[in-house]
Structure formats: C-alpha cells, structure tokens
C-alpha cells in the first residue's frame, strides 16, 4: 500500500476507534440503566415483598413451655416436682451426618446404648419439624462444659435446660399420681389444632393417674416470644414476650403417712389398700402393689425396663385399686343384712340352725359354710356377721331374692364406676336377672342368689368400690364420690354427694354393732386387730375363692398353687362412735381376711387416728396438726 493510503488509514482508524468508543459508551449507559432499573424494581416496586422476606428470616416466633403444675399431698408434701435438667438434643434437620455426630458426641459425654436406642425410637416417631430430639438427659456440669467448648463443630447439637418431672416418692404414688411421658404419635394424631398450639413446646403429657386426668389443669398456658435469630438459628435477642402461665397446683386428699402405711403393709404381696375420709369422700390412701418407679417413664423408658414391667406375672403397672375386680366375698354381708332389715325379710333376732351347709328345697346340692360343722343351732344376725356365717346369708338371700339384693346394693355404689378422678377405672359387677340374661342368655337360678350372698359367683368389685361401700355404711347411707384432689390452686373442691339413702337408724345401729363385734367381739373374725387399739373399729373380713371348689371337696391350701390361694379381704371404719375413715383391703392369694387383710387396715387406721407418739388425736388436735404440717411444708 502506498504512503498515501496509510495516512488515510490512520484517520480512518481514529474514526473507527471514536465510533467504537461511542458504541461502548452507549452500551455502558444502557447496561447501567438496566442495572439501575433492576435495583429500582427490587428496592422500590417490590420493597414490601422483600421486607417481609427478610423479616421472616430474622424474626421467629418461639413458644415457651409453661411449668407443669405441682402436686402436693394433703399435708403439703411434694409428690410431683419439676427439676431442672440439662438435656442434650439433636435437631435432625440441621445435622449433616447423624452417625458421625454420634461418634463425636460419644467422645465428649457418656452415651449408653440405651440412650441411642431411645433416641432412634424418638427419631422415628412423629414429631414437628426442627423439633429437637433428646439424646441424653441429666448432663453433668463437666459434660455441659465439654459440649460448650466443642459447640462450634457440633452443628445441630443443643444443650437445653428444661424442667423434668420428678416424683420424689418413687413407687409410692405411682398408681395414684401416675406419670408423664413424651407425647407419642397416637396422642399427636388425636390433637386438634388448638391442642397443638397449647403443646407447642411441651414435650410430655400425663399418661396415667392424676397426671392424665388433670392434664389440662397441670399443663398451664403456653407463652410466646418473638426472637431475632441469625442464619444458624441462634437466638440473638428477644423482641417481644408473652410469659407462659404455669399449670395449676393440685393438693390431694392423699396423705403420705397413710399411703406409706398402706404400701408398707402390702409390701411383698399383690394387693391394694384404699382409705377414704368419710366426711368428704376424699381418698386418703390408694395403694396398689407391686408398684413401679414412675420416674423411669418421664424421659422415656428403655425396652429392657419396660419389658420387665410388662411381662412380670405380678403386673406392677396394673392399678389394682381401681382396676382389679375381685369377688367381695363376705364383705358384702353387713350390707345384705341391712337390706334384710330394711325390707323386713329378717329382723335381728331371727336365728337359724347352721349344720354347716344350706340346701334349697328339692335340691341335692349342699351350699357349704366355710366352717365345716357350722356355727351352731341358734345363729342370729349379729353372730352371723361377726363370725361370717355363710349358711345364715344363704337363707337370707334365698328369701330376699336377687331383685331386692341388686336394688339395695346399687345404693352402695356396687356395679358402677365411682368416677374417681383418675382414668381407667373398672366398675365391677353387681348382678341382676336382666344382667345374667343379657350376658349369658340364661335365667336366674336360686343358687345364683346364694353365691351373691357370700360375694362370690357373678359378684365383682374393685378395692375402691369396697372402700366406697364401707364409707357409705359408716356415713349411714350418705354416699360421696371418692376424690383424690382436695384443692386446685388453693381452691377447695367441694365434696360431691352422690346419694343420701334413707334407712332407719335402728337398722344402722344393728349393723354397726355387728360390725363392731367382728373386731371387738369374743369370737369375731377380725378380733386379732383390736389388741392395743386406742379406739374402737367396725369391720368385716372376707375370704374370696379364686378357683371353684367342687361340691363336697375341701379347700386344702397345701394342695393349691400359690396363685390359686384365696384372696384375703377386709373392710372397716374407725373410730366406731364417730367414723372418720373407711378402709378396704384386698390381698391377692392372702388366704385369710382375718390374719392378712385386717391387720393392714389397722395400720392405716393408726396412721390416721394416732399422733407420732401413738396417742389418739382429738378432732381439734387433728385439725391443728393438719394445719401446722400444711403451713410448715408450704413454707
């Protein structure tokens, strides 16, 4: 190319370059304009949307679990407490590798196989997202410190202080107070939206006993706080807070002294003792043995422990006091004698000859008395009750008929649940013609009535029902609903009178006298418990057959399997002249009401009526002591 051309090229180049810079400038301005528009769109046009989004990031609503209500006995002793406990939990959603973190944690804190097993079960169970799954409870100070130091490499691991239910008396109140446990899938399934809200951060729920019955009262009201969190979910500050309202405090009629007396008396045996305060229907003792340690359930019981409890032949988790249905045996006799007086079937003076058995007219079968040779030629009502003469009551029942027996028994609460304030109660059975026809499709045979007259056959009652019957007798027909809770948040729960049944007081006197004779009479079946007593008692023993004894066959304890031995029963009230407490005792395979069951009742009477030095408390002294103990314990 020529020089000339090159010079032209240079100008051309400069022009091209100028042109290109211009294009570039336009493009730069255009693109910056686009960016500005984009930012305008985000910051101005959709400002609200992104403000919401960033607030959602930052502000979280956290629910705060209320403190569960405490449970005290009648004298202010704490039966169900909340104790602070540090729990190591994992938030599964935030943990990258569970197995790895478990290995890491094991180097820092003691984690047993049982903990891991319980953790895996809790993980599989239904739970809310981002809900922490507990791995180890009750961390020690050292362990907390070690976890804190390593916190930075333990994403998703949390140590939280929470209040855990604790039952200081262990197995003593397991059947009455019950226990709480983790909310399970079944319980979650039946929860309404509102329930879910109430339990937003509560982990446990009452499973049995008072803990279950008064669940909503004990729960309290959930609190809320708006918290500012960072991206890792750490709470930085609380923006707003509504405090939770603690659950209500329950004070029970139960008296630890009586409960302990009953429980110790039963120790080593299967059975139940129920004591009721006659004036109020308040349950002073509700013991069922064997029992179990309710604290095991609070943080989730291990398979091994649960299996041991569940497969034990002694059924420790079975609440015999309200669920166990036993033949009441001779304990129904005073009530039946009263019925006979009331209906005019017998008067107290009428006596029978007892050859040791009873025969229905035109029947071969002999209905035997427990005393082979009978109680003599002139057995009247008082003797029949004090010596528990079966033949007398066979005769009485035969002449009274099942309809009247049935009607009368209903007034004492037989055959129906007492509606005590703990769940899973059984109602026993107080048979009638209609019942037998409906249940077995058979007519009522006269022999059936004879069996009912000695509390056998179709007759069944729980220890609680027997105690209620006894209390009704002691109160001369006034039946009160048995209740465990005395006050809720200090508010006294008024006793509930179920029925006031009118029977002539002369008839009551006769029955009272006969029942006193059981204990204090020369030949009374319960006489061994009167020794050293500072007060008078009235009662009735019972011995219930567990297996049917064939006609003409004799009961021979040595031949029977220990679990086929007779149940021992006793009902009674004291003091005789001013009844305050009614007690029912059932000892499975305890053989004799007189020797096994009655002394247990005596121990409970003593615990209630005597002071620490064994002196009888006057009414005033009892009230004073009660008030003093209450004040002392609540301080």
């Amino acid at each position, binding site marked *: 190319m020529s020089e000339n051309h090159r010079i032209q090229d*240079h100008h051309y*180049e400069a022009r091209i370059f100028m042109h290109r810079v211009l294009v570039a400038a336009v493009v730069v301005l255009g693109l910056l304009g686009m960016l500005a528009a*984009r930012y305008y769109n*985000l*910051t101005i046009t959709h*400002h609200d949307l992104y403000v919401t*989004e*960033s607030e959602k990031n930052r502000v979280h609503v956290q629910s705060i679990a209320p403190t569960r209500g405490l449970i005290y006995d009648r004298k202010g002793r704490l039966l169900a407490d909340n104790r602070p406990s540090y729990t190591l939990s994992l938030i599964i959603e935030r943990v990258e590798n569970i197995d790895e973190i478990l290995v890491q944690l094991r180097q820092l804190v003691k984690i047993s196989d049982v903990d891991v097993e319980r953790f895996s079960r809790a993980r599989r169970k239904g739970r809310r997202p981002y809900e922490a799954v507990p791995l180890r409870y009750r961390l020690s100070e050292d362990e907390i410190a070690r976890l804190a130091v390593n916190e930075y490499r333990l994403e998703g691991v949390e140590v939280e202080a929470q209040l855990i239910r604790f039952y200081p008396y262990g197995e003593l109140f397991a059947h009455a107070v019950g226990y709480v446990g983790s909310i399970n899938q079944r319980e979650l399934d039946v929860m309404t939206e509102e329930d879910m809200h109430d339990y937003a951060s509560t982990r446990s729920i009452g499973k049995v006993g008072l803990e279950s019955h008064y669940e909503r009262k004990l729960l309290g009201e959930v609190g809320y706080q708006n918290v500012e969190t960072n*991206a890792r979910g750490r709470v930085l500050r609380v923006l707003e807070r509504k405090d939770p309202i603690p659950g209500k405090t329950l004070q029970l009629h139960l008296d630890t002294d009586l409960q302990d007396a009953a429980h110790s008396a039963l120790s080593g045996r299967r059975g139940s003792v129920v004591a009721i305060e006659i004036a109020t229907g308040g349950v002073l003792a509700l013991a069922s043995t064997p029992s179990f340690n309710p604290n095991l359930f609070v943080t989730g019981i291990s398979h091994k422990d649960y299996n041991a409890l569940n497969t034990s032949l002694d059924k420790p988790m079975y609440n015999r006091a309200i669920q166990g249905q036993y033949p009441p045996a001779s304990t129904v006799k005073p009530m039946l004698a009263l019925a006979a007086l009331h209906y005019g079937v017998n008067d107290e003076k009428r006596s029978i000859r007892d050859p040791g058995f009873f025969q229905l007219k035109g029947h071969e079968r002999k209905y035997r008395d427990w005393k082979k040779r009978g109680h003599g030629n002139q057995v009247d009502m008082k003797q029949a009750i004090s010596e528990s003469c079966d033949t007398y009551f066979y005769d009485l029942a035969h002449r009274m008929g099942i309809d009247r027996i049935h009607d009368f028994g209903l007034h004492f609460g037989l055959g129906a649940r007492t509606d005590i304030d703990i769940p899973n109660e059984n109602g026993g059975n107080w048979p009638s013609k209609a019942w037998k026809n409906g249940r077995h499709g058979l007519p009522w045979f006269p022999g059936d009535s004879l069996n009912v007259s000695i509390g056998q056959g179709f007759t069944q009652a729980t220890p609680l029902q027997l105690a209620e019957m006894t209390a009704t007798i002691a109160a001369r027909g006034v039946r009160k609903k048995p209740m465990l809770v005395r006050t809720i948040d200090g508010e006294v729960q008024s006793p509930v009178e179920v029925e006031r049944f009118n029977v002539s007081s002369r008839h009551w006197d006769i029955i009272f006298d006969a029942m006193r004779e059981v204990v204090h009479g020369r030949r009374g079946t319960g006489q061994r418990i009167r020794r050293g007593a500072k007060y008078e008692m009235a009662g009735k023993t019972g011995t219930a057959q567990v297996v049917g004894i064939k006609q003409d066959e004799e009961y021979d304890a040595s031949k029977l399997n220990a679990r086929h031995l007779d149940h021992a029963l006793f009902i009674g009230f004291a003091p005789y002249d001013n009844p305050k407490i009614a007690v029912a005792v059932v000892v499975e395979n305890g053989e004799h009401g007189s020797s096994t069951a009655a002394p247990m009742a005596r121990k409970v009477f003593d615990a209630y009526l005597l002071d620490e030095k064994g002196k009888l408390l006057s009414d005033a002294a009892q009230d004073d002591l009660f008030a003093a103990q209450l004040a002392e314990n609540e301080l």
Partner: protein
Amino acid sequence: MNQQDFIRRMPEASSHLRRQDGMWQKLHIDVPLLILLLALTAFGLFVLYSASGGDGHYVRRQGVFFILSYIAMFSLAQVPLAMMQRWAPWFYGWGLILLVLVLVMGTGAKGAQRWLEIGGFRFQPSEALKLAVPLLIASYFSQRMLPPAFKHVFWALILITLPTLLIVKQPDLGTSLLVATSGLLVLFFAGLRWRYIVSAAALVIGSAWPMWHWGLHGYQKQRIMTLFNPEADPYGAGWNIKQSKAAIGSGGWDGKGWLQGTQSQLDFLPESHTDFIIAVLSEEMGLMGVLALMGLYLLIIARGLIIALKAQHSFGRLLAAGITLTFFVYIFVNIGMVSGMLPVVGVPLPLVSHGGTALITLMAGFGILMAISTEPKKVGL
C-alpha cells in the same frame, strides 16, 4: 519499520494536551482518575466494614491491600508505553507457563485449582492474564492495519483462547470469562468488523447446547439453572440469590442504616463481604447508595474512555479502552448476578469486595491507564 517511521511522522496531537505538562504529568498521575479511585476506595472500605459485621480485621486487611494496589498502580504508571508494548509477549508467555503449572501443581478449594504456592507465598496466575491478554492483543494490533484482517483476527482469537481454556480447566468460569472479555474488547475497539461480530454471536448461540452438555461442570450448570428458577431450591442452590434479593429489596430507597441490615448482620446473606457486598450496600443504604456507587463507576469509566480517546498511539488507545470496558464488565456481571439477573459466576465487585488479588490487578490496570494518560508527547522526533 515503515510503520514506526509513519508514527514518528505523525502530525502533532492537539495542542491542549500540552496544558497537562506539569508535576502530575511528571509523576505520571492522572488526577481526575486518582480522585475518583480514592473516593471509590473510601466508599468501598465503608461498606466493607459493615459487610464484615463491623469487624475491623477485614477493613485493616483490605487497607493493606489498597496500599499495595496503589503502589502497584503508581509503579506501573511509570513504565513507558513502548516498554509495555515490547514486553507484552513475554508477560503473556510467562502467564501461560504459570497457568500450566497451576494445573499441574496448584492448590485450591471446592474442587478447583487456582493458586500457586511458592515459598509460602500464594497467588493466582489467572489474575495476571487479565492484564497480559489485553496488553498482548493491543500490542499485536497496534502493529497492524486496522480494521484487522481476518487472518489477524484469527491469530488474536487463538491468543485469547489459549489462556481462557487453561483457566476454564482449573475450573474458574468467572475469571476465564473476564480474561476472554478483556481480549475480545480490545479486538472490538480495534475495529473488528460488525459482520464478524454478528456471525460470532450466532456461532456462540449455536454452540451453547454442546457447551452445556460437555463444557460445564455440575456446579456451574447448577448456578445457571438456579438463575432461572432460584425458588425451586430456596435452601440449596437458590439460597444465595433468594437472600441477596431479600437484602437488596428490603433496603428500599434509603436503606435500613449503616450496620443495621438484618440480612447481612445476621448472616442470612452469604459471602456478604466478598461477591455479594452490593446487597449489603443496598440493604443498608438503599437504592440511593447503589446509584451513588454506580455513578462513581460511571465517572471512572468515562474518564477511562476519555484517556483512550486522547491517547496518541493505537496501542495506548486500544489498551485504555479495553481495560476500561473490562472494568465495566466486572461491574455489570457482579451487580447483575447479585440481583439475580445473571448467573452467579464468582466475580467480585471491583474495589469494594474484600480480596487482594483482584484488587491489585484492577489497580495495576488503572496504573496502565495513567501511563497512557500521561505519556509524554513525542514531538519532533
């Protein structure tokens, strides 16, 4: 040689350039550019302080980087353009060798090898190529007739592609893109014919599909997918964009106040002190702050283009315009990606994001601009 003669005989450039003769000229400092850079630096440190959660550590570190980068700028400004032109091929050649070394013995993180470690000193050779490539291309074309012939365009493209591919291989998509762009921009300013540009654009679009299948890493694909539908995976791949949009948008017109941005201060915004720092600015100072920053950038770009227009030789011209526009590409890609307009490719916000290497490269580029701007007139040679 003929060409050299031709340059020497060039008519003297416009007389107003003489007025610049003085102290600044001797120090090779372009005053308007320096003022703008200082303003931007100060603004950047201010935002960084907040973006790093009020942690002075990052600001002090960045301050040290700034000092180093200003030193680099002033040093480069002293280098005569002719020398730059002469050394450009060598510079480029060393760069290529280092890139190969990175692939052989480099270190890095997240499955990418980007760093070379020599005697405890760690650096990223790909950064150097951001300057070496435009230097070489500008030098190449300044010795050739413009607009460039097809043959020269072809060779230039080879020279651009070589380092780009080596960087893609690390893999570092963001840097490779910027390296290629820095070379291509020079090509554009050299007067690359529009018909080439249009056909190249057609070719790129046509090759997008095979590129997608064989050319990109899983994480790169995911980043691009995320762009189109970030809400599909808000807790995974879309998290960054979701959070940065929330930060930008919640700032509104005047922002939540310095150090008051909840997205950034509470760590919801990832990489808040590096790539996503403009989201912090927008959250705390609002659209106002963003526009102010864009204004500063625009002024710097304008100054860069003016320097390019005033340059005496085609080498300086091409280089100045190339560097300036590369600077703009940085800005556009970063601001665009943080707001969810462009794929997240890992490009820092120039002179604001925390990080030493990118800063030194950028300021070195401005050093070259100053060298061009203050080149002594070669009168009467």
